[in-house]
C-alpha cells in the first residue's frame, strides 16, 4: 500500500522546517478563530496537522482542504504562530487537489507574472463550463486583454 500522505514531501512544499509545525501544543485555539467556523464547517487546523504527522489517509475530506482561504487568522492566534494555510496549500499540491482553474491561474502567474486571461480560459475551459462559471463571461470581457504580456525576467 502506498501512502497518500508523505510528511516530508508536504513539509518540503511549505518551505519551512518540520519542527515549525510539530511544536503544536494541541490547544485548538486555531479552530476557535478559524473563518470557516463562522459557517459552522467544524474545521480544526490542529486536527489536520496531527493527521498529517500520523500519516492519516482520510485527509481529503477535511473542510480546510476544500475551503481554506489562507486568511492566517489561525497563525495570528496560535501561541506558536504555526502557518497552517501553508500546510493546506502544500497538501493541495501533493494530493493534486487543485482545480484546473487554480492550475491555469498559477501557470499564468509563473509564466508571465500576471493573470493572462486567454491562457486561463484555454486551459480551464472544461472546468469553467462544467461549474457554470461562464455566466460571468460578460463581466470578464470588460477588463480582459488579449495582447500577449511580456515574459517575466527570472533573476
Amino acid at each position, binding site marked *: 500500500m502506498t501512502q497518500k500522505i508523505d510528511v516530508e514531501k508536504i513539509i518540503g512544499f511549505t518551505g519551512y522546517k*518540520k*519542527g515549525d509545525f*510539530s*511544536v*503544536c*501544543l*494541541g*490547544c*485548538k*485555539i486555531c*479552530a*476557535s*478563530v478559524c473563518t470557516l*467556523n463562522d459557517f*459552522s*464547517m*467544524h*474545521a*480544526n487546523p490542529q*486536527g489536520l496537522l*496531527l493527521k498529517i*504527522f*500520523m500519516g*492519516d489517509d482520510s485527509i481529503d475530506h477535511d473542510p480546510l482542504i476544500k475551503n481554506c482561504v489562507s486568511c492566517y487568522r489561525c497563525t495570528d*492566534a496560535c*501561541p*506558536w*504562530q504555526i502557518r497552517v494555510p501553508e500546510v493546506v496549500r502544500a497538501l493541495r499540491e501533493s494530493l493534486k487537489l487543485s482545480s484546473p482553474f487554480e492550475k491555469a491561474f498559477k501557470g499564468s502567474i509563473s509564466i508571465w507574472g500576471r493573470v493572462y486571461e486567454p491562457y486561463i480560459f484555454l486551459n480551464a475551459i472544461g472546468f469553467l463550463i462544467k461549474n457554470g462559471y461562464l455566466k460571468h463571461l460578460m463581466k470578464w470581457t470588460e477588463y480582459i486583454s488579449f495582447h500577449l504580456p511580456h515574459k517575466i525576467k527570472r533573476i
Partner: protein
Amino acid sequence: MNVIIIGGGISGISAAKILLKEGHRVTIIESAEEIGGLMAKIANCRVGFKTFFDEIKDRQHLTIIKGKKIEHVERKNGIFKLKIEEHGEIEAERVIIATGLTPYDPSDIKGKRVFTSLEYDSIIDQRNEKLPEDFNKIAFILCVGSRSKEYPLCSSVCCSYTIREIKWTLMRSNPEITVFYNDLRLFGQEFFLEKLFREKGVRFIRTNTRYFEEDEAGVTIRYYTDGEIKEERFNYAVLGIGLRPNQGLLQLSKLFGFSLNEYGFVKEVEPLTADIEGVYICGGALEPMNIKDSILTGFGAGLLASKGKEKVYEVLRENERYLYSEKEPELDIDESADTYLLYAGTENPFSSMFYEYISSRFIDFAKKLIQSGKKVYVVTRNFVSPSYSELEYEEIKRDGVIFINLEEGEYLEKKNGMVVIGGGKRSLSLTVDRIVFMDDLISDLKNKEFLSFYRSEPQLRWSPTKWSRERFHVGFIRHPRAKRWEGREIIGALSEMLLDREEERVIPQVHEDRCSGCGSCKNACPHSAIEIISVPKDVAIFGLLSNTLNPVARINSNLCMGCGLCVSTCPSDVIDLPAA
C-alpha cells in the same frame, strides 16, 4: 555583615528572616510603594503574607526602603556600594536578588467581561461584600501568555491558582464554572480538589480559545471540542495569565554585572547563586514558581548569603542526619520494538501526583527512542512539564515525537491488535509494538509518603521541606520533579532547620503516675510523636510490695507539633497542655 535584598516580596522576606536570625543587618529595597509583591496582591494570600512579615517587621537590624530605585552600583574590595535615589548610599557585602515575577498583560484580548485572573481575584475578594449580580456562568481560560513562541516556558502556577480561584468562588457563590485547559498542571493534593470540583459540576474542557465576542450582557466564547465547533454564552471570562520575568532585572543586571539567560531570568551557575561573587538569587528571579518554592529558595539564598558556600557545606555535614531523601526509582523501558506508545494518563488522583515525574521520564524515554530511529507516540490525558521542563517538551516535539491529547471522555483501548482512541467522535487508530502505561511505572511508589502530597498542599504552610522536627524532606520524596531543584532544596531545608530550632512550641505533658497506657493518644497522634513505653513501678497488693512494668505514654518533643489532639483524646485526662 550587611546584606541587601532587592525586592520585598515573599522570597525576599524569607531571605531576610534567616539573615536576621543569623544576626546580620538587612536592608530591603522595594521599588513599589508597599512591600508584599505579587503575593500580597492575591486576596487570600494577603493575610498570610502579613503574618509572615509581622514576625520580623520590628527587628532592629531590618531597614526597608520603599518606592525607591537603585541609581548606581559600585564594587570595591568585595563591597557593594549602592546609590539609591533620594536616600543616599548604602554598603553591603552580599546582595540577594528577589525581584519576583511580572504578570503578563493580555491587553489585546482583554475587555470589560474578559479579564485577568488577578482582576478576577479582586472581584471575589472577601472585602467586597457583594459579588456582581450576573455572577452565574464563568469561564476560565488557561495558558494565556505562556507556552508560546514569544515566551516558551510554562508559568507553572496558573493551573494551581485557577483551581484555588474556583475554590474561593464556590465558597461564596454557586456559579456554573467551565475551565478551558491544555494540560492541568497541578501538583500534589490539588488533584483531589480537581476531582472534588468535577463531582460538584465544574466542567473541564481540554481545548483553548481566543474567540471572545463581548457585549453588555456577557461574552460569547467559541471553542472546538470533540469534533465540532461550539458557541456558548458566559457572564465572565477569566484569563489565567502567565508570569514573566521582572522587567527590572535587565536594569539590575547592567548595574551589578550578573548575566541573564535568554528568557530574562537570572542565570544560575550553582544552586541559588548568580555568576558574580556575592550575588544570590531566589524566588521568581530564578524561574516561575509558586509561593512555597519562593519561600524555600528565599530561605536558601538567605543562608548562602549569610554563610557562603563553604560554611553551608559544614552546616550540611552537621545536620545531614535530619535530611531525608530517597533515591528515585530507576524506570527503564526495553528498546527492542520499533513503534512505541507512551500513555501518560491515570484516573486515580493519588497517581496524578506523579504526572510531573512521569512526564519528565517520558520526555527522556522519547528522546532516547526517537534518536535511535524509532517511532514514538505519546498519548496524554495530562502532561505536566512546568517552567523550564516545557523547553524539553518542545524539543522532543520538534524531533518528531507525536503527541495525541485525549479530550474529556476519550480513552485508550485495544481493538483487533490496534490501539484505538475511543469515547469521542474522532476515529484515530494506531498500530504500535509496545505500550508503556504510566500506572505500571508508578505502581511501586503508591505507598510512599511524599511531602508535597501529604503535608503541604493545598493549604499554605511556611514549612516547605519539614516533615517533622527530625525529618526534612528533599529531592524525590519531597516533590518528584526536575533535577535542578535538588541543590536548592537541600540548602532551603538546612535553612529551615536552623529557623525551626528557634521556634517556641507548646509540648503537652503526660502525668505518668496516672497514665494507664491505654494507647488512645498514640492512635490519635497525627505525627506519630507518642510512644507507649514501660516504666518500673512499685505496686502494693495486700500490703506486699511488688515490682512491675507499667505502660505509659511518652511524647517525643522533636516530632510533636503541639496540636493538642492527644489532650482531647485522653480518656482519663492525664495529658495537659501547659498554660501559656
